[in-house]
């Protein structure tokens, strides 16, 4: 469904991705693991069209999307929940959700997804008139995910949804991601929390300073000595 081929991305003169290949099949949860600065966010931002690759291609189905504008990429069915949540803090929860559905024309579809999102995150329904900036960190992460889902995406890109959350919240967020996936949304999950991510995902890639160094089934990666040493604390 999503295929990244030989992707190079630069920030100015600095090359951040040195030829990345990865693939996500329809229905999967795929995780990208890696330490700080490995290039995980760069990869997701490039898929979403906020960064342009220096070389390489990105296919979504049969469509080469790396030269498309970000808003057209969302329209095709790729939504992203960015690192650090980036909710619109001076807008209400409801306005944030409406913006998530910006590309969806069909009002009854929007209503349907909104009901689903409120079912996933009942807390947001209670707070729909509250300013997003006044939510707690965990609630903001819920809002960010909910906002991404409002685009009614085929694939959801999640950039470190567990960042800064208490373990119990991480658990609940991850089980919600599973539920989202089971209702038909493909998931590409970037994480530093390797243990939880590999438990959830079908497959994984390990990124180190701009290169994929390992990939395979999540179960295989969990027991890989190199992964255990670097990401699972031995």
């Amino acid at each position, binding site marked *: 469904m999503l295929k990244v081929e030989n992707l190079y991305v630069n920030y100015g003169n600095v090359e951040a991705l040195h030829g990345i290949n990865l693939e996500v099949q329809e229905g999967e949860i795929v995780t990208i693991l890696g330490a700080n600065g490995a290039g995980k966010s760069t990869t997701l931002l490039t898929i*979403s*069209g*906020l960064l342009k690759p220096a070389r390489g291609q990105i296919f979504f189905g049969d469509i080469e999307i790396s030269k498309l*504008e*970000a*808003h057209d990429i*969302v*329209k095709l069915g790729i*939504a*992203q929940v*960015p690192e650090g949540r*980036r*909710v*619109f*803090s*001076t*807008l209400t929860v409801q*306005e944030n959700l*409406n*913006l*998530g559905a*910006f*590309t969806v024309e069909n009002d009854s579809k929007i209503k349907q997804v909104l009901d689903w999102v409120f079912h996933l995150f009942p807390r947001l329904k209670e707070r729909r008139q509250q300013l997003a900036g006044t939510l707690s960190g965990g609630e903001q992460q819920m809002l960010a995910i909910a*906002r991404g889902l409002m*685009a009614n995406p085929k694939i959801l890109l999640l950039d470190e949804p567990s960042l800064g959350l208490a373990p119990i919240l991480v658990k609940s967020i991850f089980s919600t991601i599973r539920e989202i996936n089971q209702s038909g949304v493909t998931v590409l999950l970037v994480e530093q929390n390797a243990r939880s991510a590999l438990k959830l995902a079908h497959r994984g890639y390990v990124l180190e300073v701009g290169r994929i160094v390992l990939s395979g089934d999540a179960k295989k990666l969990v027991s890989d000595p190199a992964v255990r040493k670097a990401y699972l604390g031995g």
Partner: protein
Amino acid sequence: MELFIQQLTNGLAIGSIYALIALGYTMVYGVMKLINFAHGDLFSIGAYLGLTFLISFGLVDKVGAPVAILIIMLMVMGLVGLIGILLERVAYRPLRKADRLAAVVSALGASIFFSNSLMLIYGAKFRVYPHNLLPKSYITILELHIPVVRILLLLVSFILMACLYLFVQKTKTGTAIRAAAIDQGAARLMGINVNKIISIVFFIGPALGGAAGIMVGLYYGQVNFLMGWLYGLKAFIAAVIGGIGNIPGAMLGGLILGVIESLGAAYISFAWKDAIAFFVLIVILIVRPTGILGERVAEKV
């Protein structure tokens, strides 16, 4: 008391003009973090286009002054709005990724280009607006005689501002404008075409500025190619007083500045009218560096 009320209503009228112009600065700043220094000249262009349309089509004779003024005002708003879009394409978009200073220099260049074009086309002397178009009557409230024109001017400004407010608060595009002002990257991830939002903002701001231009022409009866400079500066001050980037702030800042200036001119000294504007600015910036309704923007500038 008579003097006070007269100055107050006059201050509100002129303040609402400042507010209309200030909205252009603040909306562009909100989305682009850029001060459009050519905005005052777009206001002048509005004033001159209004003059041309009023004297050249004979519209006033055909449909009567009120309808003619309304139609011409809408035409002026549309045209100045289009010039605004063009300005962004030519002077700012190519510099989007360049140094901030480059955009400032480009803005100043555009400002000089506009004011000099007006001078070449219309001449350097003051031009007089047709003066028999607006009612000369007064309405009397509690023995105070307030010119009808002044009330009309306030009314039209408030209608324009109310429309803008509803548009920005209640529509999908308006919400997208607010989102783009908060976080452009996140807005793009929502599927918002930020270039389109910028064009819309560069239409609305100049359109309101153009409306202010024709209103000043009608209210004061004369226009000059350099008028945009002082009005632009005052409106910019108003935008900063209210909190730059904040739409209700621009409206409030404009009204406050107009009233203080007008009262100051009456009770302190007319000659110090313009200095008072700067004084108010300095005091507000000392007390509240972000402006009255502004949030912390220092790190963004």
